[in-house]
């Protein structure tokens, strides 16, 4: 594969805080893995906290970690992040800028693209360097099409969907050099005041965006998520929900999957009492394997699933869990 001869600049996300320390997120490790394959030059990370996870970054063969000085500004504001990233772009002159296609990543891609006059693409599932420039593939129209875009201008800005690349340690780890970056903030960044910003309480399970298995409950649960949670635990997966369940207040909005919720690309998606409305499936169509239990034989979910059961989830799911546990016990 052709590579670019300029560095790749990667905006990384960390979890944690100043007290407990910061940990590189899995989607960011995936970005760095992808970045190594794109360039014959260096991979340079940008971190938005004062104590980046240098061990994890080193395992990904990052040469340098740029730490922009955010001062009193919050990294929850996309204009703040964009200004910081723009300062790094000016310094490094990378061949491409990568970030994670979460909500902030999409906002940052839009803003940085506009600022640099560059082409930008979000929700990208694969990237390739060609003679005519960078080619980015993504799914379109609720997952029913795949499109490939060529970035024709500027320094391409790409937001990559989580889980489309598997993170791998580099053969030769590095000891990344930490570089502080001064930033001058735009009026627009100064103009947004963060009144409060609270991390949502974690469910104790793997996070939805990173999960290899996602078990989703829909209206068919009638508010009783215990079979959904039990199956998620049996499969070591995350719990998701349809919008109906969030609207009804059965689950927090943060686990809603779909057009206006989280996008997931797990290896396995299990829908329980989910009809498969297009607003929902737009968030899960890139799942490698789809399984569903729904009592309506005409539900559209059966058109996209690999294995479907027409039946009552309250009967089917406990039996399936028991069978899974038996099979495991036998091994």
């Amino acid at each position: 594969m052709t590579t670019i001869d300029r560095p790749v600049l990667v905006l990384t996300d960390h979890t944690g805080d100043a007290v407990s320390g910061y940990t590189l997120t899995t989607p960011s490790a995936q970005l760095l893995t992808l970045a190594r394959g794109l360039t014959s030059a260096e991979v340079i990370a940008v971190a938005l906290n004062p104590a980046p996870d240098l061990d994890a970054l080193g395992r990904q063969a990052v040469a340098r970690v740029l730490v922009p000085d955010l001062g009193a500004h919050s990294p929850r504001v996309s204009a703040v992040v964009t200004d910081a990233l723009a300062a790094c772009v000016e310094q490094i002159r990378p061949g491409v800028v990568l970030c994670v296609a979460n909500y902030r990543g999409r906002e940052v891609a839009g803003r940085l693209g506009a600022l640099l006059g560059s082409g930008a693409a979000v929700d990208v599932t694969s990237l390739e360097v060609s003679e005519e420039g960078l080619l980015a593939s993504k799914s379109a129209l609720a997952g029913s099409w795949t499109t490939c875009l060529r970035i024709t201008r500027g320094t391409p800005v790409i937001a990559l969907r989580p889980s489309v690349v598997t993170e791998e340690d580099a053969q030769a780890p590095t000891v990344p050099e930490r570089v502080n970056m001064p930033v001058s903030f735009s009026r627009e960044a100064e103009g947004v005041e963060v009144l409060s910003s609270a991390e949502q309480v974690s469910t104790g399970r793997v996070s939805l965006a990173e999960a290899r298995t996602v078990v989703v409950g829909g209206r068919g649960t009638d508010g009783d998520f215990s079979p959904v949670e039990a199956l998620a635990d049996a499969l070591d997966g995350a719990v998701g929900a349809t919008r109906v369940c969030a609207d009804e207040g059965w689950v927090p909005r943060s686990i809603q999957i779909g057009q206006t919720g989280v996008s997931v690309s797990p290896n396995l998606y299990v829908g329980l009492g989910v009809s498969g409305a297009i607003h929902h499936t737009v968030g899960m169509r890139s799942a490698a394997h789809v399984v569903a239990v729904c009592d309506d034989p005409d539900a559209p979910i059966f058109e996209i699933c690999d294995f479907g059961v027409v039946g009552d989830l309250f009967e089917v799911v406990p039996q399936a869990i028991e069978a899974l546990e038996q099979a495991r016990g036998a091994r």
Partner: protein
Amino acid sequence: MRIVVCVKHVPDVQSDRRFEDGRLVRGEDDVLNELDENAVEAAVSLVEEHGGEVIALTMGPADAEDALMRALQMGADRGVLVSDDRLEGADALGTALVLSAAITRLHGESPVDLVLTGMASLDAMTSMMPSALACHLHLPFLGLAHELQVEGEGPWTVTISRSADGFDDRLRATTPALVSVTDQVNEPRYPAFAAMKAARSKPMDEWDLDELAEVLHVDDVEDAFTATRVVAADAKVREGAGTVVTDSGDAGKQLAAHLLEEVL
């Protein structure tokens, strides 16, 4: 309070959406982007509360006027369509550039206090346009509002709540500002017959690029609006193996067997 609400005419998500020659087929079953209805509703109810004017703005082919008409029916006061053959193939960032020029022109007529957009358009779903638009207009941007409060009397204080990427945030800015809203922010109204009729007599402008020349600073019109080009578009064949069984007492076991064989 003078509000510009940006809307888009997109293929209905329930229709047979497809690409031909790398372009999304438009003009068959297009509607006002569902997520923009929330932005129009927010704009109209703010003006009902604070007084002022709502201008619905779109960039698109001639029939995108239908999306503006829907916004007028929902209570917007005026429609502005930016349409020009040279804009064919414009991407999200190109659209932001053109809309920013149109808003700058509107602002020149009389100051614009607030720009509202939906959180994404359902055709490309990039969510890039609102933040890019804010960048071009040099406005503070509050994205993904599921709650929106406006207080004061010019300049106004805009406060939003949003939930994104595992955080719940409350953000604030002073007008002029740009806000994108989610489908949670309100319940869009369904226009009554009288409102539909009244919409037909509301002003509708159509501008081409020449009319924006003074406010649109681009060197090369051929190239300015597309920094990405679709080089391939393929329909994904249904990947599901599509085995569907009806439970007759042992489907749970079958499901477990399937998972153990095919996935785990």
